[in-house]
């Protein structure tokens, strides 16, 4: 129970001012303290870990930005949560995209499990994850877990783009964010170490931006990797970009925002001459949250409903989303999500 102690220790900073409520997607959906950061902290402090709110946290960590007292809410949730068997199963599947491909096919065939039915509803047709490596690669393209199976063309475009200048190796794997968020902290470390080993000290260009954000924080777990989010790499290297005559809006994934990565998306689009119609709040949570979209169907649908209104208000159908879990949510809302790489 050392983890609970840690969570409780971190919770002491909370002065229950409530500043976190209105930025929390589940609070906004339910208007209930149980599903708010402040309520979750109170549950942790009192040791009431069976409180339903502990499970319903999307782990977007927007509350951390709103918190005037600097409470590390993500750490509290990660330390306090006990993953369910189902969650552990999902994590294992995510660790290997081939497994994810097979699981998704089973789900599409009608596997009689609740989570499988939800997967079948939400995901597009799965594709076998592509594999690629140039000899003596100088750069890793990290595609994550979802993209290689459900957004294969995006991965291939990114690969093609990078290969114009670099020798690239494609890695389809999990970054461990889902594990970390849902309380499988040790396994998250293992996953991180595995990834660190696989990178062999080479710089990683990561396609899913929330994973980029998580990997950038690997140092705190004691794992050293050099990570760039794809748009970040494109912008830092000033890679040449094609001009595009397009009107679209941009979704800002939550963790990417925490790491300050979304600005690179905007500057890349600006260089391409793309017309961006801003949402009133582009950071509004999409409801995907890694495994959340599958595990909390009701709440994630309610969060998506709010996001759908926000996107619809721009009049755009195309939404740039640099995170693939978000893209799944946006597809479910009826929009056309694209990654920056899709424009190259």
């Amino acid at each position, binding site marked *: 129970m050392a983890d609970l102690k840690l969570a409780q220790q971190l919770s*002491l*900073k909370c*002065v*229950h*001012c*409530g*500043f*976190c*409520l*209105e930025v929390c997607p589940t609070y906004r959906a*339910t*208007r*209930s*303290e*149980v599903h*708010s950061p*402040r*309520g979750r902290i*109170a*549950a942790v402090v*009192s040791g*009431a870990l*069976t*409180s*339903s*709110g502990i499970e319903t946290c999307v782990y977007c960590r927007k509350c951390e930005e*709103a918190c*005037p*007292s*600097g409470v590390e809410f993500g750490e509290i949730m990660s330390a306090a949560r006990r993953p369910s068997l189902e969650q552990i199963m999902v994590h294992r599947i995510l660790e290997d995209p081939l497994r994810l491909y097979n699981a998704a096919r089973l789900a599409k065939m009608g596997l009689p499990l609740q989570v499988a039915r939800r997967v079948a509803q939400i995901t597009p047709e799965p594709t076998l994850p592509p594999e690629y490596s140039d000899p003596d690669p100088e750069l890793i393209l990290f595609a994550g877990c979802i993209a290689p199976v459900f957004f294969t063309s995006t991965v291939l475009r990114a690969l093609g783009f990078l290969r114009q200048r670099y020798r690239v190796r494609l890695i389809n794997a999990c970054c461990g964010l889902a594990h970390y968020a849902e309380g499988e902290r040790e396994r998250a470390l293992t996953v991180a170490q595995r990834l660190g080993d696989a990178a062999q000290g080479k710089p990683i260009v990561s396609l899913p931006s929330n994973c980029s954000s998580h990997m950038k924080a690997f140092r705190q777990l004691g794992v050293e990797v050099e990570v760039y989010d794809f748009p970040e790499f494109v912008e830092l290297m000033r890679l040449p970009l094609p001009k595009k005559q397009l009107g679209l809006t941009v979704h800002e994934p939550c963790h990417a925002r925490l790491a300050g990565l979304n600005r690179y998306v905007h500057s890349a689009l600006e260089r391409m001459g793309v017309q961006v119609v801003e949402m009133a709040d582009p950071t509004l949570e999409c409801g995907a949250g890694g495994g959340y979209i599958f595990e909390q169907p009701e709440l994630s649908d309610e969060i998506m409903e709010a996001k759908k209104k926000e996107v619809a208000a721009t009049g755009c159908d195309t939404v740039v989303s640099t995170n693939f879990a978000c893209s799944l949510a946006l597809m479910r809302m009826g929009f056309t999500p694209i990654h920056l790489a899709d424009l190259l």
Partner: protein
Amino acid sequence: MFIWNSCDVVVVDVRREVEEIVGARWVVEGEDAALFGFDAFTAVKGRPRLVALPADEEQTVRLIALLYRSCTPMVFRGSGTSLSGSTVALTGEEVVVSLTRLNRVYSCEGLEIEVGPGLANVLVTRHAPHDLFYAPDPSSYTVCSIGGNVSHDSGGIHVPKYGSTFNSVVKLRVALCDGSVEDVGGTPYFNGANIFVGSEGSLGAVLRATLRLHPRPETSRTVLGAFQDVASTARAVSAVYEEGVIPAAVEMMDRNSIDVVEKSRYKAGYPDCAALLLVECDGYTPQVEEEVRRVRLVFERLGGKVMVPENPAENSRLWLGRKGAFPAMGVVSPAYLTLDSIVPRTELASVLEEVGRIAERYGVMVANVFHAADGNLHPLIPYNPESPKSLENALRAGWEIVEASMKRGGVPSGEHGVGIEKARFMHQYYSQSELEVLWRIKRAFDPDRLLNPYKMLYENPPETGDRVVSLLYTKPWEAE
């Protein structure tokens, strides 16, 4: 416990009937109910018997009528950001009626906007036409709800020019304990909304509020004055008005609060000084320019060093420090008390001196950061939440500050409300016969005293077994 109750209907299973009204998903009980048992007043936590989150006005009204009929005490709660503990479920008997789901914007016409009580303050302006804004802005404006603002008559930094919430309330729709609903206010003579503003949920529930919007100022400018002694700083506040300036905001920070801010992530780069004033002038550009010129002159005349931010970024930085002053206290201590007594502007220097002496006597560090134009003190008194002794010390220091304010012609609460925190001062601020008149009002609306019991008005202290609660409810003359 409520011996005056005259309930005639016995409701056998309140919980079941509550569920019938709001639906199972919207009833919270057991350990989870405790998550609704506290607000931003850090010293006391309670645990409601049950929480209900009605979806709309109709459910709310039915719920209130049911609870009242069944002799169930109730607390109306919005975002739960009260600093006086007005929404704490103190005894454990209370059902919390959460009004958070009543957060619609109904209409916006002319200078009026009609909203639900659960709407966050910040969203009022967001839903207003672009040339108008909602003026009251308590520091928790991003989250505090309109129902709570109305019930506390919340202030904020722009009160000097635009008034407190009271001045912006045009009309209210209220639910009374018998299940009736009335639209009050919006009338030129008698205005039935007046009594509900600042009544801390003890007379009925606010179901809807029609609020007044103001034209957005053409220009807004900030002047910072840094002074070498507190007396000149305080003097400068009145001097600004004597120049004919009506500032939108005048905030003061003393050395302690500046030090804390500069150590925190709200660091503003304030000049080294004993105290500073942040003045905001807004409105018609030529008028603002002249106001700024005069404020500068006043500050310089009184020996102040003047800073006028050159660009919006610098301007925001100066205000960030002020706005972050409360949370920045986290640098010093994980918990702190904030009071909100008021003195006339002319008493500021004297009361601040007294605050210094009180702090010394109790061995606490008091940081003062407050609405100077309103004479509205906000002494921040840190304490160690693990140590009851430390909390008691902080409480007593705070009480003395409130007393020092009252002695100088002030009042116990300017904007946070009485709640639990200042209930004891009602017996000091009002005479027995005055209190009886307040009770007569209370009884006319709530004959069985079931609405937000023990807040603002109480006769006998609640028996909760909690030492802090019994301390808070000790009448001043009963303390040693």
